C-alpha cells in the first residue's frame, strides 16, 4: 500500500526518473551526487513494475539536469525514463543516452592501470553502446558492462 502512495505522489516541478533497475538504484544516486543536494526528494526501490518486475524510482523537486549530467546514468540504467514536471504536469518525456566519453564515474577494471594506483580522474571512450564497453584512455584496456564499477 505504501508503494502505491509513493508511486502516485506527485511533485510540482522537477524531474522523475522512472524504470531504474533496483540493482542500479544506489549507483544512480551516487552518479547524480544526490547526497550533495538540499532539494526535496522521494526515492523508492524494489517497487512492483509491469515492465521490469521490480523497479526503482527517483523524484526530485526543482531539479532539472543538463543532458550531459543525466546521460551518465545510462551506464547503469540504460532503460531509465525521465519525466520533466512543471505545475504537476509531465511537460517532457525523455530517455537517457549513453555519452561518447565517460569522465570520472567508472573505475578501470585493469588492476595494473595507473588510474588504480594514483589519484587520477578516469577517462574512457565508449566503444560500444549496445553492450556498454569502455576503453580506458590511459591503459587502453576494455572495461565491459559486467565489470563496471561506479566510483
Amino acid at each position, binding site marked *: 500500500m505504501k508503494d502505491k502512495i509513493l508511486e502516485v505522489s506527485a511533485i510540482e516541478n522537477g524531474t522523475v526518473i522512472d524504470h531504474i533497475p533496483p540493482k542500479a538504484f544506489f549507483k544512480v544516486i551516487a552518479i547524480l551526487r544526490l547526497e550533495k543536494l538540499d532539494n526535496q526528494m522521494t526515492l523508492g526501490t524494489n517497487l512492483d513494475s509491469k515492465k521490469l518486475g521490480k523497479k526503482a524510482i527517483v523524484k526530485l523537486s526543482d531539479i532539472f539536469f543538463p543532458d550531459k549530467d543525466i546521460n551518465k546514468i545510462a551506464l547503469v540504467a540504460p532503460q531509465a525514463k525521465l519525466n520533466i514536471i512543471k505545475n504537476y504536469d509531465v511537460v517532457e518525456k525523455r530517455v537517457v543516452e549513453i555519452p561518447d566519453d565517460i569522465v570520472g564515474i567508472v573505475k*578501470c577494471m*585493469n588492476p*595494473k*592501470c*595507473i*588510474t588504480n*594506483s*594514483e*589519484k*587520477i580522474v578516469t577517462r574512457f571512450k565508449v566503444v560500444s553502446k549496445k553492450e556498454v564497453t569502455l576503453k*580506458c*584512455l*590511459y*591503459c*587502453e*584496456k576494455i572495461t565491459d558492462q559486467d565489470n563496471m564499477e561506479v566510483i
Partner: protein
Amino acid sequence: MKNKSLVSITDFSKSDYLKILDLAESYERKPVSELLTGKVIATLFFEPSTRTRLSFESAVNRMGGRIIGFSDSSSSSVTKGETLYDTINVVSNYCDLIVMRHPLEGSARFASEIATVPVINAGDGANQHPTQTLLDLYSIKKTQGKLDDLTLFMVGDLKYGRTVHSLLMAMSQFNTTFHFISPEELKMPEEYKILLRTLGLKYHEHKDYTDIITEADIIYMTRVQKERFSDPIEYERTKNAYVLKNKMLTHTKENLKILHPLPRVNEIDQDVDVNPKAYYFTQVLNGVYIRQAIISSILGLC
C-alpha cells in the same frame, strides 16, 4: 612532432613515421653529432630494462646530450612512496625530455599530461612500447626497401604480445597482407581483426607452420610465455610446436627476413642464426638510430 609526446604508436601519423625512418637512415650514415649539446634527457626506469635503457642512452650520447635518471625504482625516491605525479613534476624542471618505463599501464599517458616537457614511452606494462614499433618499421623498410604491399607473418603469442599489436597498427597503413600463426588460446584478438577488415586488408590465421611461409617477406617472431598458460603441459607442447628451425626456411623467399623483439627463449632455433635471413641481432642496432631520430624530432632539432 615538435614537443609532442610519444606514448602510443597511434600518437604519430603515417607521415611522422616516414619522417622518423628517413631521419634514422641519416643517423645510420652519420651517427655522431653535437645536436643535443646543452640538452638534458631524463631516463626514468621505474622497472629495470637494461637493453632499452642502454639503447636510449647510447642514442643521447651519440648526439652529445646529457643524461640524468635512474635505472630502477629501488634507487630513487619512489621507494619512499613518492607518487608518479610528484616525480614527474619534479623531474620536469630538470630536463628537456623524459624517457620513461613503468610497470603500470597508462603511466606514460598520465606522465605526458603532467610533464611540462615531452615524454617518450619506453614501455608501460603490457600496454605500449612505440619506439620498438618504429624500430621494427625501420628494420622492415631497410631490408625490403619499402613498407608498402608486403606479406607479414606474425608467430607465437599474438594475444598478449604488445609488440605485435603495435606493429599491426602501424603496418596496417601500408597495404600489408597479414598471416597469423598461433595456438588457439593465443590468437590475435578480435579487435585487431576488425580493424583489418574495416581497412579492407587481408589476413589469414593458421594453427601451424605450413608451406604458406614461402609467401613471407617478413616473419615476426614472439615469445610464448609460460605465465600465459594455466596448464604447464599445454605450455610445453605449445612452446615446442612454434619453434622456427633453419630447415623450414629452405624454400622461403630470397628477401625474407626474420625479426624478433628479443630476448628470445627457444622460439627461434639457434641453427637459424647463421642464415642470412636472420635479422634479429641487426634489428637491435637499428634501435639506436631510430631513438636518435625520435629524440631529435621531438626536440625539434632537425
